[in-house]
């Protein structure tokens, strides 16, 4: 009898590793070479993009939010005592061990992706060519309907300055602080796609000046035939690098478009197929199974293996991050891809990286598993050395990218869930079956070396730092 029970126990242990992996409230975070420094609950709002900005001697985190949930469409802001549509959280992270929530700017009405204010970028007026030197400008989306510019010089009392509205969608824009040129991901009403680029001169943010509309030929007004994959977001290297890397697609039909920035800004502006094609230098078509959510350039990287080659010792690399969108592995794996774009007309995928699913039975844990986004800060502390990737229920992953032909993981952190962490459901036999899991959605870093991750399932913002051998990769003490 005793032996029988022993065998039953062994069998149960054998078949239930997935159950053992499901997160529980009160269980500690899972980590390797990364540790928690501080945390803020962000008023239990679903978080999208964090931007960390140094304002004088303070560090301020601006966090964009999705709309609320069906259960809590307008969470109460404890600072005002009132329910507010999810919008933008402003948190003083000068002392990362004790982040202080300063203000919440409400966003658009609507739940999940239909509301909120997902995207945020910040530039100092002192850096913008025609800005008020005393101002700090925050560019944010307002749901899918508008872009807004706020003065956040006093981050506890932001003031709305300008609004560009009448759109059918918005998403992850890019703003060059040294020139004021903004690549706004918008849905112009007459375009055939939900997301394209509206380029504005925001050097004087109070008086936005439209430069042109841009997208892939076939997306423009009046076109017929196949509609190319919609834009997700661009990243510009500014006038010095003279390139803009556009990522189209989230989890399907990804396209990376390499564009000559000067030709884009100064070329003919009418959205004809010829004019849209003119500034393009190269294009990488990804598998129909993967999108190009983030296209992060890492140019002129010395490759140790090629050090003695007469040509091609340094390579221009773009790290492409797909976005997983379906819960519990309901789609092909979304991960990261490294493309060598040195020969711009022939971009080539040179490597990929994914979290090994079996390392945590992540397909069974609940919610999404797969990549979503990378840090976008180009501060020297991590740039071209360590990339941080938000991986939904697998937390944040720290990747050594010094040899992009052979990326390798050097650390990870999967936050603990709380009683505010929202459930994620799939249909099983026609009925909802829900699980609660961390959903690390976005990540950003600051120039001190802190890593900020935010959660889509309402678990807040965790401030982390590397430790152990991973610090050495970044050259941190």
């Amino acid at each position, binding site marked *: 009898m005793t032996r029988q029970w022993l065998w039953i126990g062994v069998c149960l242990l054998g078949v239930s590793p997935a159950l053992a992996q499901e997160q529980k409230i009160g269980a500690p975070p899972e980590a390797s070479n990364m540790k928690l420094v501080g945390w803020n609950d962000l008023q239990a709002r679903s978080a999208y993009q964090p931007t960390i900005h140094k304002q004088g001697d303070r560090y301020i985190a601006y966090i964009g939010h999705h709309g609320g949930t069906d259960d809590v469409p307008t969470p109460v802001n404890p600072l005002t005592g009132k329910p507010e549509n999810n919008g933008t959280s402003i948190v003083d992270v000068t002392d990362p061990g004790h982040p202080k929530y300063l203000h919440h700017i409400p966003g658009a009405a609507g739940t999940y*992706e239909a509301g909120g204010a997902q995207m945020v970028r910040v530039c100092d007026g002192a850096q913008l060519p025609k800005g008020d030197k005393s101002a700090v400008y925050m560019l944010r989306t307002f749901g*899918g309907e508008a872009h807004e510019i706020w003065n956040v010089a006093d981050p506890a009392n932001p003031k709305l300055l300008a609004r560009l509205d009448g759109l059918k969608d918005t998403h992850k824009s890019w703003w060059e602080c040294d020139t004021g040129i903004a690549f706004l991901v918008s849905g112009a009403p007459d375009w055939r*796609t939900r997301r394209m680029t509206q380029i504005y001169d925001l050097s004087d943010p109070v008086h936005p000046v439209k430069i042109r509309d841009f997208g892939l030929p076939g997306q423009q007004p009046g076109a017929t035939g*196949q509609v190319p994959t*919609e834009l997700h977001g661009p990243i510009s290297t500014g006038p010095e690098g003279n390139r803009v890397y556009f990522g189209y697609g989230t989890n*399907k039909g990804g396209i990376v478009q390499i564009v000559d920035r000067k030709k884009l800004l100064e070329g003919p502006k009418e959205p004809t197929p010829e004019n849209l094609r003119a500034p393009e230098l190269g294009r990488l078509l990804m598998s*129909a199974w993967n999108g190009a959510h983030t296209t992060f350039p890492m140019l002129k990287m010395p490759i140790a293996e090629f050090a003695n080659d007469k040509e091609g010792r340094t390579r221009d690399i773009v790290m492409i991050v797909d976005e997983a969108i*379906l819960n519990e592995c309901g789609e092909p794996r979304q991960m990261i891809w490294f493309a060598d774009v040195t020969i711009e007309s022939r971009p080539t995928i040179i490597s990929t990286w994914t979290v090994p699913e079996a390392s945590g039975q992540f397909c069974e844990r609940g919610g999404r598993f797969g990549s979503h986004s990378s840090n976008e800060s180009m501060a020297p502390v991590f740039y071209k050395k360590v990339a941080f990737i938000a991986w939904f229920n697998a937390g944040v992953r720290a990747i050594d990218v010094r040899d992009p032909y052979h990326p390798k993981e050097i650390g990870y952190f999967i936050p603990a869930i709380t009683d505010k962490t929202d459930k994620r459901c799939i*249909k099983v036999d026609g009925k909802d079956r829900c699980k609660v899991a961390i959903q690390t959605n976005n990540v950003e870093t600051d120039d001190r070396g802190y890593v900020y991750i935010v959660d889509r399932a309402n678990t807040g913002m965790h401030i982390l730092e590397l430790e152990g051998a991973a610090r050495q990769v970044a050259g941190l003490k």
Partner: protein
Amino acid sequence: MLSRRTLVHASLAGGMVAALAAFAAFAAWFPKPDRDEEATGWRRIGWPFPRDAFPAGRAWRRDRTEVYVRPKIGFCANCATGVVEDSEVDRVSDVDLLDPDFVPVAEGRRIRITDLLGRARLYRIRKGGRERLAQGLAVSLNCDLIVAVAVGPLDDEAVAGSVRHFLETNTVQVWLNAQLENK
């Protein structure tokens, strides 16, 4: 060393297996019609398009009209509003599988398939070297889409109506619900 007789028998056996496999494939290509198919005259045909971002759907033919249907899980641009613009029908309805250079004939219109709302739009396409008409249809269920494209004389309202009616039959709905419920 095998005898000549053994080799002949082995070849015959191999041939029979191959013939059976071919027959099975042929049978799968032309599945047995169900009751609704019998009643409506629609006959199942093979999904003719190459693998793409979404799993293959199902296809049927009646007279000179063919219809191709599949769910696109998580592909709705706006989970709250559903399919409300013609550009969305252009983008999602699979009409590009028939001809990537499709040209809309007219503005689309609002449609209802069972209790799901969306839009349909008529296009001119080239298929098999000649010009034809196609209708793209897209309806939404939260963040998921059900899309269909029909090709045939769809300027005839009776034909267009019979396509929509067929999409509401058990033949299509039971299969679609199974896809959506086990996503």
